[in-house]
């Protein structure tokens, strides 16, 4: 059914539990902004929200081409949701290329709103269509609204006194206004955002006004054009009481790191080199100088990693973030951190590889690199965050473990959760446990009756003491050569080497005693246990729920701790007929579980630069259930 903007009917209200909507268009069309604003409005309204921004690697890819399409998907709901939705019910396409790339993901009968003006023969061809899809009947299964957005925006702004280019850039706001009308949303949040961004930050109040005008025009157009038979309402979700804000993964990581530093009462040093999708952590942290945060952009990832060695030695909470190729460059210096036994956190916001790969797409393929990717025996702690808000918690835990065990900790996130955003319940600072750090001020040992500082005298957690330069009497020198137990002197002794290699491994292994027990989503026995880690949490959790709802004996667990693996995991695995490990790689956690527990874990693997769809998991698990 294709309704023209001119056709009309009287809209009524319909209540929905959740809606997935995708904005798409050229990368210059402001789709990320529109999507973000829709998200903000939804979270502030009180919906559960999960987002999935997806944009091309080019800054501004050539107009109208399919590879230049930028998309932003949001699922908002009145109940708990964990994914942006497999398919969407609504597609907003600003041009033919956007339509082309995204139409397959719209549910049959879904709403497709297009900017009719953009469907010129030239654009249609550029998108790779032979015929205009608005006319050839190929969209018969959808409710298509063809809105002349370009023309309407122009007309509505004719008195703004702004140039054609600026007006053209307000199309996204017109479209957003229309969508707000459709979902009965207030414009307030976006008007405030436009005023702040263009008016106050960019000092262009007229641009702000114009965008607000376009937004309103879109909204009013919805009201008057009577394009849709119904308007939809997605009511507030029941959420835990508290104050909320929206947060994206990278932002949550930044906040978590600052929080950890404050809990430890120590300065945060962040040394890094820009790389997509990790750079936003740098951007965020660099605005927090009033928290004493030092952000240093170094010449490369090697220097960044090495700066952590120095900063940690000198007493800061030392952190860096990077992505695959940068991680590769850091591995030598991480090894130095391991043998020096200095606390530091390395965040890897994973992206699709190998090599430069698909730099703006997500993947989970750096797990084995995190666990094994260094020369020699260099055990360290590896954690992974499961979602945007969880980055906050994982960052704090990473710092806590690094300090307690005097070790580098690798924290894995990925492009999907780093850029994705959701509501986050603001914690009460008083509820956060302080992080204890002690720096010796006295010599801690005796050799031949003389008091000395022994930098490798371990405590009950096998951690060594952390004496800081500037402390009189504790002068000591350490580095990358194997060191004598206790004294820290250089040692080539064979037995001592064995002892130190074993001690470093034992220390990391012991850290598992600190991990909270594994939470089961479901019963502790059954036919299938789904084991996930990282940013696939939402899809796996939702898939497991759905399978249980359909009567299958399925449970899921999601591991935050990947090295060492948490205590009790083996027992849990043995409670199920089959262990299934869904991952956005070729089976990396699977290989670790197989090696450790000798379980014949089965993988569900996808390496397409995109997250799992819930349906993919559900279908595949059903197949597995029905095998044998």
């Amino acid at each position, binding site marked *: 059914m294709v309704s023209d903007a001119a056709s009309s009917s009287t809209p009524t209200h319909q209540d929905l539990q959740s809606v997935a909507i995708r904005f798409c268009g050229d990368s210059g069309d402001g789709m990320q902004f529109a999507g973000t604003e829709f998200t903000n409005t939804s979270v502030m309204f009180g919906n559960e929200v999960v987002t999935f921004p997806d944009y091309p690697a080019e800054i501004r890819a050539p107009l109208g081409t399919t590879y230049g399409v930028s998309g932003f998907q949001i699922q908002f709901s009145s109940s708990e949701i964990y994914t942006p939705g497999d398919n969407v019910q609504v597609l907003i396409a600003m041009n033919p290329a956007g339509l082309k790339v995204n139409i397959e993901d719209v549910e049959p009968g879904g709403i497709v709103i297009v900017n009719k003006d953009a469907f010129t023969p030239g654009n249609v061809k550029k998108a790779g269509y032979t015929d205009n899809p608005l006319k050839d009947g190929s969209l018969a299964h959808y409710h298509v609204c063809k809105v002349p957005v370009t023309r309407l925006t122009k007309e509505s702004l004719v008195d703004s006194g702004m140039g054609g280019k600026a007006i053209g850039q307000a199309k996204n706001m017109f479209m957003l206004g229309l969508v707000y009308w459709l979902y009965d949303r207030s414009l307030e949040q976006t008007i405030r955002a436009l005023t702040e961004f263009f008016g106050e930050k960019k000092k262009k109040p007229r641009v702000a006004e114009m965008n607000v005008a376009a937004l309103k025009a879109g909204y009013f157009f919805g009201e008057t054009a009577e394009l849709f038979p119904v308007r939809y309402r997605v009511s507030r979700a029941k959420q835990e009481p508290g104050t909320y*804000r929206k947060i994206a993964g990278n932002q949550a990581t930044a906040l978590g790191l600052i929080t950890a530093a404050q809990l430890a009462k120590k300065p945060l040093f962040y040394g890094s080199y820009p790389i997509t999708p990790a750079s936003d952590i740098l951007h965020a942290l660099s605005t927090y100088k009033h928290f004493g945060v030092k952000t240093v952009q170094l010449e490369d990832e090697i220097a960044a990693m090495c*700066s952590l060695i120095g900063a940690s030695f000198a007493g800061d909470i030392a952190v860096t973030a990077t992505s695959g190729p940068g991680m590769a460059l850091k591995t030598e210096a991480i090894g130095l951190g391991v043998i020096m036994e200095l606390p530091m956190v390395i965040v890897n916001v994973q992206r699709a590889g190998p090599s430069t790969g698909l730099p703006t797409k997500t993947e989970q393929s750096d797990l084995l690199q995190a666990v094994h990717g260094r020369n020699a025996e260099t055990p360290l702690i590896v954690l992974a965050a499961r979602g945007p808000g969880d980055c906050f918690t994982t960052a704090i835990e990473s710092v806590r473990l690094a300090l307690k065990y005097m070790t580098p900790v690798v924290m894995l996130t990925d492009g999907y959760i780093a850029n994705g955003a959701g509501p986050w319940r603001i914690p009460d600072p008083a509820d956060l446990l302080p992080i204890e750090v002690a720096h010796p001020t006295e010599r801690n040992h005796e050799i031949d009756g003389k008091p000395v500082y022994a930098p490798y005298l371990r405590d009950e957690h096998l951690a060594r003491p952390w004496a800081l330069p500037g402390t009189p009497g504790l002068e000591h020198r350490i580095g990358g050569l194997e060191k004598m137990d206790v004294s820290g002197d250089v040692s080539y002794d064979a037995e001592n080497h064995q002892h130190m290699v074993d001690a470093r491994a034992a220390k990391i292994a012991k850290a598992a005693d600190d991990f909270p027990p594994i939470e089961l989503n479901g019963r502790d026995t059954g036919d299938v246990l789904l084991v996930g880690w990282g940013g696939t949490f939402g899809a796996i959790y939702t898939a497991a729920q759905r399978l249980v709802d359909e009567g299958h004996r399925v449970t899921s667990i999601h591991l935050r701790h990947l090295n060492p693996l948490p205590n009790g995991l083996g027992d849990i695995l043995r409670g199920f007929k089959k262990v299934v490990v869904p991952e956005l790689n070729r089976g990396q956690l699977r290989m670790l579980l197989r090696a450790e527990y000798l379980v014949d874990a089965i993988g569900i693997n996808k390496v397409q630069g995109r997250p799992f769809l819930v349906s993919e998991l559900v279908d595949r698990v059903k197949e597995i259930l029905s095998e044998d």
Partner: protein
Amino acid sequence: MSSISLPTYKPADFASGQDVRWCPGCGDYAILAAVKKVLASRDVPKEKYVFVSGIGCSSRFPYYLDTYGIHGIHGRAPAIATGVRCANPDLEVWVITGDGDGLSIGGNHMMHAIRRNMDMKILLFNNRIYGLTKGQYSPTSEQHKKTKSTPMGSIDTPIQPTGFVLGCGATFVARATDVNRGGVNVLPEVLLAAADHRGTAFVEIYQDCNVFNHRAFFYATEKETAKETTVHVKHGKPYIFGNNNDKAIAINRCGAIEVVNVRDVSPDELLVHDEADRCRAFMLTQMRYPEYPEPMGVIYRESQPTYHDLLWAQINEAKEEHGEGTLEDLFSEGSTWVVE
């Protein structure tokens, strides 16, 4: 100024007690002795020093000093030192590196530490060879040099360290030899000047590798030749050198360096050293043995804000503007809403 009495040290107070493991006759011994002397002569308590090195014979240096120290990984000392520097502005950071460590694998960190004017003293022990790995050529090895990895002679053009760092924007550039059996031993003077410089102080030290490149710098250190092959540069003083102090450096109309006879120029017309002239300094660094005498001493020095000064200034400015951050502020930034 301060009334707190500072410790007074003897050079031996800076010995770490570790056995020194360089080859007998290695030039590193003389440098170690000179550094200990300079440290002992200064007002800085020894716990404030952090010596950072990479990997190489030279990079074993920190083990032998009773200060804080990091023996890092190959080439990365300036980057490690950057972390120390930014973490704690009260420390004094020294970097010890070799011609391979600092200019081959570590050239990039050298360049960036220098251009950022990261406050640290960098002592580059130039022995024109890879000592620790037993004698391959280094980026400062002369062309055609036969070494383990270049049995037919090296075909690389060597880098000229002081010219290189001037091109990187160095604020302090100096040169000395490990020992001097001929002219003036400028090492103590240079080390002291470096210690007192705020910003990156780069010091190239010609160092004899007794085992793999013996006598590489004898032209500059031995009695017979030192006075003819080196010129001791001092701010405001003419560039006089030669066994009879009869030669001087001048600049011709086109801006090029010339060696003149002192007698041919009236004393007040003699060109004098201007530490603050980068282009002049660059010219000086282009003077190479055997065509020219090589400059020793402080070749260039200017005063510029250091990286960490600016870093702390921003932190303080931010704190003044926004107030010291609290977790409450941090969490509740931007738009929030309440669920009851």
